[in-house]
């Protein structure tokens, strides 16, 4: 089968890799030939944290997200070090509420926190440890998929060479011309370098409005994220967002005050009204979209389902109304 995948963000690359791995003839179409800041997945946190996400996400995110770790392991290092959830609030009832709405965690005391993250010793009395969760480096992962595809002779080209065959639209928010119920949810993030703090795993901080997290990228580099704003704006960070993220890092460990700010990232995540992904058939085109803040978490499951649909004729559970 000949398949043309449009969009070389995390969804498009995962779909292409899955299809190519299962024997389809694939080409990937994007205006830029290598992964980069034009795709919103470039700015992702790379947390594979379905149990934590369940706090505010619906059931499919947990169930489908559990596939992600093993899938990614085929292409890129997956660091299976869990997630630590902490609250900066003196009032630990927020932590209890987070615990009530999630599962698969251990309640940890200051001693265990010190064992997990020696640099946080003495700073927190209580936390939640989600041992089964993992994280990866999104940019390494995107590059790994690109080079694995290249090994199979699949390169990213500027325009489709074939007009026959099947076409899969994985353009993210750019597909809102065809998907009228798609909207942008703005996210802002920072990359900082701080040699004085070592963290071994993503740390989430409970915050009244946004899920704040710090993901170690190695070599003293940390990703700080991420805001969630109902906006399709993709290029401006506000002082408020910057302050909120930096103060969270500073509250986690004062040494972050000396961190060097390496990058500021802004983009808009594509989302449907229920913030769940969809596979939608639209004539000869199959559109895979709406992965919201779960690009790396849900792309493997969506890629599997898209391949099942094309190669085996299995209707995906996330397939909605047929616009054809």
């Amino acid at each position, binding site marked *: 089968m000949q398949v043309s995948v449009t969009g070389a963000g995390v969804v498009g690359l995962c779909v292409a890799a899955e299809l190519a791995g299962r024997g389809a003839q694939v080409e990937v179409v994007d205006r830029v030939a290598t992964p980069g800041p034009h795709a919103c997945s470039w700015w992702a946190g790379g947390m594979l944290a379905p149990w934590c996400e369940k706090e*505010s*996400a*619906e059931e499919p995110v947990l169930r489908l997200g559990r596939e992600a770790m093993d899938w990614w392991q085929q292409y890129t290092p997956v660091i299976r070090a869990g997630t630590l959830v902490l609250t900066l609030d003196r009032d630990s009832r927020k932590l209890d509420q987070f615990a*009530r*709405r999630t599962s698969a965690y251990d309640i940890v005391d200051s001693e265990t926190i010190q064992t997990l993250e020696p640099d946080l010793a003495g700073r927190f009395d209580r936390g939640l440890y989600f041992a089964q969760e993992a994280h990866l480096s999104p940019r390494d992962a995107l590059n790994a998929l690109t080079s694995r595809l290249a090994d199979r002779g699949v390169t990213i080209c500027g325009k489709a060479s074939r007009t026959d065959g099947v076409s899969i639209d994985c353009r993210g928010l750019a597909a809102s011309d065809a998907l009228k119920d798609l*909207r*942008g949810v*703005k996210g802002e993030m920072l990359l900082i370098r701080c040699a004085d703090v070592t963290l071994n795993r993503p740390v989430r901080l409970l915050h*009244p*409005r946004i899920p704040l997290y710090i993901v170690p990228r190695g070599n003293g580099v940390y990703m700080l994220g991420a805001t969630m*704003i*109902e*906006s*399709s*704006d993709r290029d*401006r960070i*506000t002082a408020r967002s910057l302050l909120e993220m930096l103060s969270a890092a500073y509250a986690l460990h004062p040494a972050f005050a000396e961190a060097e700010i390496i990058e500021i990232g802004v983009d808009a995540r594509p*989302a*449907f*009204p*229920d*913030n*769940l992904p969809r596979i939608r058939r639209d004539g000869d085109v199959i559109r895979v979209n709406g992965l919201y803040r779960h690009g790396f978490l849900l792309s493997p499951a969506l890629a599997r389902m898209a391949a099942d649909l094309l190669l085996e004729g299995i209707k995906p559970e996330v397939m909605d109304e047929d616009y054809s």
Partner: protein
Amino acid sequence: MARFYGQDLGSALMLGTALYPSPAIMADAFRASGAGVATVSLRRENGASRAGQDFWSLVSNMGVPVLPNTAGCHTVKEAVTTAQMAREVFDTPWVKLEVIGHTDTLQPDVFGLVEAAKILCAEGFKVFPYTTEDLIVAERLLGAGCEVLMPWGAPIGSGLGLTNIQGLRTMRAQFPDVPMVIDAGIGLPSHAAQAMEMGFDAVLLNTAVARAGDPVAMARAFGKAVEAGRAAYLADPMEPSDMASPSTPLIGKAFLE
């Protein structure tokens, strides 16, 4: 029925649109609660570029009157600019006016509030001012042209319920003909019912529904509580008494136990 600036609302519940797990859950929560008004905050960063249009359309399409607010504004100038933007985006003269004094307590800056209310009322806005239970501030707001008052129940997002019941009773009694909404601090349906039993015309809340484990079920509960509280107020509740008061006469009983 709740009536503000000449418009009747389908319900005395005013529900916010922030912090829901998804817009779909938000829309379900509105349906389940039967809320009469949707409040929506306009981030100024989005107002100018209209980058928030997709979400605003989702809110507008719920079929509930929209009350834009100036949430998070700390100065008169910010609040006025945000209100002007909101009027343009939502095509309504209604605005919930918030001028925040402190970033941590989120207490209204009542001086800035009165000043902003004057400016906006003069520009033809129908202002819903978020204020404290202070009677003099209330008088000034009415003097500025507001025809609605929105005293707080408790600090924004605290969920504490009505923390100064006597103050709110006094305010209700002082301005019997002014439509009044309890805004902020409502955590439970019982808090909302209590406000309605006291004769307030509506309650406005957001976090209590949006951050519940099941926002749709909580929204339904709030809808019922507001209705029950209003019905109880209209039914003229009994006066409480310090002493037990037997509901059947004792005289004439053969034996007193």
